[in-house]
């Protein structure tokens, strides 16, 4: 990948860049001299010389045609896109799979829970009915001192007549309306 991208730096532009950079370094290192326009000497001069010369052979890139570069760029972009898409798909697939496993397990657990609740409910019903029957049988025994209900032992009460709600309901709306109108005026 990186090999394919390398030739993007054109061979012609490199020395010029280097030279500019070297100049900047020189100026920073020796501001007084550069301002006075004195010739540069010493290490700085050497540096400049080295940079102004043609770059060593190993730095010369393989010449490449612009079409190839464009195609590479396109391919690279395509590659990046595909990689991202693949990653996304892998993540989605894993997530989806995980979700199905999770849902499956949750469903299993829940249905087991429901079953056990239903079983418990069934057991409770049965036990309560057995207990009821047992108590009724105990009560039937003469030794229990209980007797079946007889009309002589109970009091019959007439249910009270329902009060007509019309009388109480009627004033409420008539009172409520002025109250709501007056409320803001009071304070």
């Amino acid at each position, binding site marked *: 990948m990186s090999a394919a991208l390398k030739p993007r730096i054109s061979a012609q532009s490199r020395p010029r860049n280097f030279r500019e950079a070297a100049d900047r370094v020189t100026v920073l290192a020796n501001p007084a001299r550069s301002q006075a326009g004195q010739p540069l000497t010493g290490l700085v001069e050497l540096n400049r010389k080295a940079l102004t010369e043609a770059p060593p052979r190993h730095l010369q890139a393989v010449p490449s045609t612009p079409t190839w570069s464009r195609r590479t760029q396109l391919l690279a972009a395509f590659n990046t896109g595909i990689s991202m898409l693949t990653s996304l798909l892998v993540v989605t697939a894993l997530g989806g799979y995980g979700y199905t496993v999770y849902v499956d397990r949750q469903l299993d657990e829940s249905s087991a829970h429901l079953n056990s609740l239903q*079983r418990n409910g069934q057991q409770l019903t*049965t036990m309560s*009915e057995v207990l*009821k*029957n047992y108590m009724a049988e105990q009560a039937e025994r003469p030794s229990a001192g209980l007797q*079946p209900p*007889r*009309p002589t032992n109970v009091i*019959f009460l007439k249910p009270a007549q329902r009060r007509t709600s019309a009388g109480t309901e009627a004033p409420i709306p008539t009172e409520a309306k002025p109250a709501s109108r007056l409320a803001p005026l009071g304070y």
Partner: protein
Amino acid sequence: MASSADSPFLKKPLLRKQLKKQPLWGKRLRRHRHPNKQRQTQRQGRGQGPRSPVKSHQPTRLRALIVWGLLMLGIVALGVRLAHLQLVQGPTLTQIARQQQFTPDVPRPARRPIVDREGNVLAVDRIIYTLYAHPQLFQKAPAEVAEGLSPLLEIPQDELLNRFSQQKSGIQLSLDLSQEAAERVRNLRLDGLELLPQQQRFYPQQSLFAPIVGFVNVEGVPQAGLESAFEKELLMEAAAAAAVPAAPLAAGSLNPTVPPELAAPLKLQLTLDSRLQRVAQQELQATVDRHGAKRGTVMVMDAQTGALLALATSPTYDPNRYYESDITTFRNWAVSDLYEPGSTFKPINIAIALEVGAITPDDGIYDEGRLQFGEWTIQNSDFSHVGGRGPLSITDVLKYSSNVGMVHIMDRVRSATYFDWLQRLGLGRSTGVDLPSEVVGQLKDRDQFVNSDVESATASFGQGFALTPMQLLQLQAILANGGKLVTPHVVQGLVDDKGSLRWQPDRPTPQPVFSPETTQAVLEMMEAVVSDGTGKPAQLPGYRVGGKTGTAQKVTEAGVYGNGRITSFVSILPIEAPRYVVLAVIDEPFGDNAYGSTVAAPLVKSVMESLVVIQRIPPAQAAAQ
């Protein structure tokens, strides 16, 4: 890359060398990074002399081919293995997986519960366990296993050891372990024991409702009562869906084929009231025991609807232990056996006579005490010590239960009309009750009835034809509800958790038979029977009760009337607003003093006492205020 190496462009020495040495593009990158190394390689290359390009990329091609071949081989091998697993071994592997994944799940309830009108459970499914022992899998000594199990199963250790030695595997130790007992067996943590759960029908009220509800046998097949009559309605759809051996996800609630309204937990509700039923059963049993009777029944019906509030029969059985019971008790004799109703039928006859206009309530009748029809003699039951009663009102005829008086009344109705009326009341037809194995009443042949005077004479006091106690109750209900022939029933319908009805059996609409004026007149006569006649033992202080006693001779197997009696009492209350009909029939009570008034009437009274309390019927005086 290999193909580009063949192009004539690349036949320059430098490129050729590059290709020769490092033909892959990865190497070219390295050349930029490590120029010294690259130079060295180039030099070495020069030293060795140039190779031909064809020769130089042969190993590359070969390598690629080998890699490709290996990959393809791998793919093919995987494919073959997959096909083998799926196609050849598939079924076997599926089976093995199923076996490994299978946990003996507790089966779902298969039948709906049956509840009474108050919601008390009369029949419900419960889980029981069958315990199997496999001695060859025991990790401990059989003696230890027997020691652990003995107290839980209530089987002596020696017997358990004996059973363990009989077989190596599959010894059934217990058939009906409860859930708690099964849990205890599990907690012993013994190897070689197997607990298999199953649903079993359980009747918490034991023998109380057995003749009505019936039972389901060990195989889950309903055998009697409502269990068999309403088999289809009681079967749960969810259970049917769950019975399909499907994927682990196929729970009943997730099955889209089951409509939600049917998947809801419904119960079969009865019209019976447990409290009243219990009182009725208790009193009935006491009466049967006291008089050494063969059998008996007490029924309470809401005459407006035909709904039964209590239906006690004796003898009964425990449906949880049906296999220990007498098979004859499985049938409810109140619907499956016929009897001659005797005097309890007299009010119906009077209603017929009133309805056809043969008599009016204020008419008078002369009672000679004894009548002769050819070879047949008809006399009052008290003729031997009272003789003829002389002139009687219609009310008196009922009050003293005068047979001769009844013969004279029905004599005023033409035989054919009388017969038609009996048929119209449903004699000889089913009552339509929802209990199974109902027997149809017997009525004489029309010609025989119409042409013979003695036939209509005997029918006038309730003999010479037969019906079930249930049918008599239905006929008495006509008098109580203003003249409608209602269908007796014990099933209310299927109700949901909130108690609202989801399904109701179809019943014919009650047909009016008598006019309300007629029934009201008869009710007043019946009230006189209780207040001042043979029905005095059924008086309930404060309440207006109408009633009629009945003591009929039983026909022996030889076809003649023998010493056996069947005593009965029917009562209707409260007279001011008639609603409930109580009928008691006691078959073959022992002793000379066994009459409807001495055996059945006190029984009806004690049932009525509970009825007025449970149904909150205020005393007549209180109601009048």
